[in-house]
């Protein structure tokens, strides 16, 4: 059955903790993790609630394959209402925390209310208790992690925590687990801090039992591991270069957003690429990359473990950054590099370390700095606002300064912590914010990759690449090549990717497997592990149901079809880079067809037919 069939409910307001059975009727329809937790959120909260108020709930959820030997089966998601977007937030993380939670015997934790005082939750198998966060509140994630390990005395304790950015109200604060893996987007860390919850520590020794057919499960897991190993992307590109394998690829096709998306190619792209991370530096002869690293159960191992050049200005007299830690992934390198025009690999790695240490989403952080830089170069933000720092594009000093300011919530860091949308509104230039539904873009320019325009516009959590990664098809030719410059066929492509990805997330697997796997490779694993018959068709149906449920939540939260839009810049200011010269994103050619394929009204509302088809709640 693979589910632990148990939910841990933590009421932070009155400090009570209880255990309850997992709703298996919902699990049959929504699988687990992202889908199932959204079902709980919909049942238990008002979508119109204040995201940072006690009425919002925050759910940490594993999937049925989390904690099993299925490759990449170690993932959990944090589901809540986002303070950045006002839409549903669902942030997925790897590392080891999710599998440990499952091994402790829990499918999910539901946090409700708000603690009167800062606390952290300690879980050892079926025992859970809230403990005072005196001495831990006010510390960075790394310091909190060390302090909690000292208290539990167990090096195997897995910790998920928020940093000082979250405590100071940064709207894109992440939850960091295992020191450098992030439930990164949409401000889930901000919600956690708003509940006065500093950290969740978990130690599980019960394991994942009751696999439906262990022999068949291990056989299919072994077969599918071979598929990942033999695929050029998951078997070679990702282990060698990480997601950073994309930096030069996306730049070369003229789709690398640069300087707050004013341009679509970055002359310094190579300097911050995966290839550059392998080049020995002059000072100590070592490359930026020390090794690749896997999350729990993952046979791809795309993670980066890196050091910063010991002679680099950013880390002088800062011993916490003078050793290995989680290195650059593509989206982070893009946001804090290309989008800010910074081509200094060590400065970008430093900013990444700070994002891990103090729990910021590096995409939103970098893109917000990029917006601030454009405001600065246009003379709207001045050194009077920043306290002296010149925020010019390309300034490594400005980037590293901004990271530390947002990390600690000091001075101008408060403004930067608003995110691009509210920052640009505050300074009177909302048109300079490169966001959808209030969330910053990731690293693919929709003027060069049309399908990504529709992906961003319709994503249920605001601009996001992980909801339907059509880059796979439009750039890499997976599962089949489509032309990135054309809009024809993209509505269907986006819908198919959205539905499939919702199912992948909800099983507890990593979306990066989809460079090699389709649902055909995953369904047999889920079917061998879980009760019931799990086919590709059933997974697709569940994925579509989950997508509609998330959409329904957003509509009830006050969003409308008008929010399925892109900034004017991407619709009207043409790309000037040679490979994509003259192109804008033709969203209007895709969106009506997309609504039609979804069975929604022409203004993007769910219909009764769709509600009935998927048995959506009220």
């Amino acid at each position, binding site marked *: 059955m693979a589910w632990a069939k148990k939910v841990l409910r933590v009421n932070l307001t009155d400090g009570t903790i209880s255990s309850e059975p997992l709703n298996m009727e919902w699990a049959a329809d929504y699988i687990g993790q992202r889908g199932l937790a959204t079902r709980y959120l919909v049942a238990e909260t008002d979508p119109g609630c204040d995201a940072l108020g006690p009425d919002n709930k925050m759910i940490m959820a594993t999937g049925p394959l989390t*904690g*099993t*030997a299925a*490759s990449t089966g170690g993932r959990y998601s944090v589901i809540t209402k986002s303070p950045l977007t006002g839409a549903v937030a669902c942030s997925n993380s790897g590392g*080891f925390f999710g*599998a440990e939670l499952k*091994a402790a015997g829990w499918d999910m934790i539901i946090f409700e209310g708000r603690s009167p005082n800062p606390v952290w939750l300690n879980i050892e198998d079926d025992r859970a208790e809230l403990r005072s966060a005196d001495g831990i509140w006010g510390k960075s994630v790394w310091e909190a992690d060390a302090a909690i390990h000292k208290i539990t005395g167990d090096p*195997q304790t897995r910790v998920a925590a928020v940093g000082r950015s979250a405590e100071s109200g940064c709207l894109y604060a992440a939850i960091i687990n295992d*020191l450098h893996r992030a439930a990164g987007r949409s401000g889930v860390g901000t919600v956690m801090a708003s509940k006065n919850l500093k950290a969740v520590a978990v130690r*599980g*020794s*019960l*394991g*994942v*039992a009751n*696999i439906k057919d*262990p022999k068949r499960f*291990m056989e299919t897991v*072994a077969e599918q*591991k071979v598929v990942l*190993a033999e695929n050029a992307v998951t078997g070679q590109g990702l*282990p060698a270069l990480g997601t950073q394998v994309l930096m030069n690829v996306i730049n070369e096709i003229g789709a690398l957003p640069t300087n707050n998306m004013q341009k679509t190619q970055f002359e310094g792209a190579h300097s911050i690429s995966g290839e550059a991370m392998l080049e020995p530096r002059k000072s100590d002869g070592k490359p930026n990359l*020390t*090794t*690749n*690293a*896997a*999350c*729990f*159960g*993952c*046979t791809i*191992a795309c*993670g980066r*473990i*890196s*050091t910063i050049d010991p002679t680099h200005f950013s880390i002088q007299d800062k011993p916490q950054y003078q*050793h*290995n*830690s989680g290195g650059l992934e593509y989206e982070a390198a893009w946001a804090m590099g290309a989008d800010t025009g910074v081509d200094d690999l060590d400065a970008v790695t430093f900013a990444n370390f700070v994002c891990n240490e103090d729990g910021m989403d590096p995409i939103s952080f970098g893109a917000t700095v990029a917006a601030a830089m454009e405001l600065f170069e246009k003379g709207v933000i001045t050194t009077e606002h920043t306290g002296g720092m010149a925020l010019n594009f390309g300034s490594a000093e400005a980037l590293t300064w901004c990271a530390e300011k947002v990390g600690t919530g000091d001075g101008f860091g408060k403004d930067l912590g608003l995110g691009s949308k509210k920052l640009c509104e505050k300074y009177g230039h909302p048109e300079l914010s490169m966001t959808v539904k209030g969330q910053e873009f990731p690293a693919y320019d929709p003027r060069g990759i049309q399908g990504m325009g529709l992906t961003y516009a319709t994503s249920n959590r605001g601009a996001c690449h992980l909801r339907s990664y059509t880059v796979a098809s439009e750039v890499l030719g997976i599962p089949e090549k489509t032309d990135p410059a054309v809009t024809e066929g993209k509505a269907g492509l986006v819908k198919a990717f959205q539905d499939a990805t919702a199912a992948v997330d909800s099983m507890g697997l990593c979306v990066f497997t989809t460079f090699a796997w389709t649902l055909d490779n995953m369904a047999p694993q889920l079917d061998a592990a879980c009760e019931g018959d799990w086919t590709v068709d059933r997974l697709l149906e569940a994925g579509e149901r989950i997508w509609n449920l998330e959409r329904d939540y957003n509509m009830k939260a006050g969003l409308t079809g008008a929010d399925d839009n892109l900034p004017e810049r991407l619709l009207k200011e043409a790309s000037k880079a040679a490979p994509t010269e003259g192109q804008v994103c033709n969203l209007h050619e895709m969106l009506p067809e997309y609504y039609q394929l979804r069975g929604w009204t022409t203004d993007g509302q769910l219909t009764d037919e769709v509600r009935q088809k998927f048995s959506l709640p009220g």
Partner: protein
Amino acid sequence: MLRSLSIDPDKCTGCLQCEMACSLENEGIFNPARSRIKVFTFHEEGRFVPYTCTQCDEAWCMHACPVDAIKMNFQTGALEVNEKTCVGCKVCTIACPFGTINYNRVSGKVIKCDLCGGDPECAKACPTQAITYVDSDATGLEKMRAWAGKTDNAQHAAG
């Protein structure tokens, strides 16, 4: 041919596939906490190291056991714990210099690597060949081959 587990930490990515394969084989569940092989992460150094019993010939655990519960399986070379005889006194866990034999509070007995009866699951599950099962007399062969490859006799070969 007697075979041994050979561990090359440089190839390890820290994925724990070995721990899950071990616990499934021995406990019937996925449970790294009950694995006989452990992967250690040295985060600040950027290193992962799998570690398990090396099956000593003159095993400290075997000699320390007061009830002779630990015996060598001469087919595989593994030191095996007889669960029926083991009384859970844990003296072996004190005697072992490497810490690779441990008490299991669920069974009340000690557990250690037994090479899965000659077909170790950890080696089969490892995606990077950081754990292999090779000729006991030649566990250094691949290291020797790597160093041999660095021997500078290219000119001879060319000539």
